[in-house]
């Protein structure tokens, strides 16, 4: 991503954190980021709506990048997931900007997150795929499985679990173990 674009998104994120999405204007973002209105409209022809949408997507990417860094390496993919799900859930609950906007402008934020979601699922699946391939080489994953749809499925349902765990308690390691080795991966794990 180029520098100016990143500066605008960062500025927009700071504005949203302070005032929420409805009250943020292109002028605010220009002042915050030190980028002119004209340049913002050149990079984001859709104006405020496009800036908001891309800022949500940008922060979703950053959230999962940070998570990946924090998790580091694991012995295998199931173990990686068993650590990733509770950590992601905790970080989501501790994400102050997200939680604030969810309280004040939930409908609008949810619509934007949904629009950005398929892109984020793609990025997470791309991150998972080499981990699954490594497990296949180690004989942990069935040899006859096309792993790309598996990575997509696990990314999608992991996102579902961390955003809305519902009846599942992701802080409970026994429960997470059961989900990872059961619903998420039973179809591909050997033995």
């Amino acid at each position, binding site marked *: 991503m180029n520098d100016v674009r990143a500066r605008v998104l960062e500025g927009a994120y700071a504005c949203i954190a302070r005032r929420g999405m409805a009250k943020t204007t292109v002028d605010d973002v220009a002042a915050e980021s030190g980028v002119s209105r004209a340049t913002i409209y050149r990079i984001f022809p859709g104006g405020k709506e496009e800036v908001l949408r891309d800022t949500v997507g940008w922060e979703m990417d950053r959230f999962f990048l940070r998570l990946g860094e924090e998790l580091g390496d694991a012995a295998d993919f199931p173990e990686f997931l068993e650590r990733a799900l509770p950590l992601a859930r905790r970080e989501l609950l501790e994400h102050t900007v997200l939680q604030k906007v969810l309280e004040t402008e*939930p409908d609008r934020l949810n619509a934007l997150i*949904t629009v950005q979601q398929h892109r984020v699922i793609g990025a997470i699946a791309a991150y998972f795929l080499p981990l699954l391939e490594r497990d296949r080489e180690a004989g942990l994953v069935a040899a006859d499985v096309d792993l790309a749809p*598996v990575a997509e499925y696990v990314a999608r349902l992991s996102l*579902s679990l961390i955003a*809305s*765990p519902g*009846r599942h308690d992701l802080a409970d390691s026994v429960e997470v173990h059961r989900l990872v*080795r059961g619903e998420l991966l039973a179809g591909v794990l050997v033995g």
Partner: protein
Amino acid sequence: MTLTVAPVATTTRIRDAALICIGRFGLAKTTVDDIAREAGSSRATLYRYFDGKPAIVRAAVVAEFDRVSDALVEAGRAEPTFADAVVAVVVRGARELRGHDALQFLLAHEPDAVLGHLAFGPGDRVLVAVGDAIAPAFDRWLSPDACTRAGDWLARLVRSYVLMPHPPVDFTDPFAARAFLERLVLPGLAEIGELP
């Protein structure tokens, strides 16, 4: 104002009329007058039974939830094996949502009106409610606890693959759905614990 309890046929007609109007004009533009006209009732009749448009919409959502859940439970129970029941529930669920004019209109034109109820905290409540409602579809094959767990997982699947944009598989297609579910999902549900 005291509301009168309406005859079932009347409330059903009013709720159905609301869904037709929403499928045609959306939620924001639908008025009580539109609903009354579509139902063949007067405005006064509607207000005798419902406390305004939000109450009508709420009643319609509750009734649709029950109707679709009942249809899914029936679809699952009619099948000879657990695998067939899972496929039937997912395909029927996908078709009910895809073919739902009011829901599809809102997703396309007023997504804010729907998506906020399906994500994060509100999503938790919906998943628990749907999981509980469709669990009986599997009670010939699974223990009660495992039924609820399977219901939860299928509710998640359908929410993610049918309501969100760009799904990689079309669950309204029984062949595609079966191949996907047999490969990725059924092994995990079978491990939940079958009845002896």
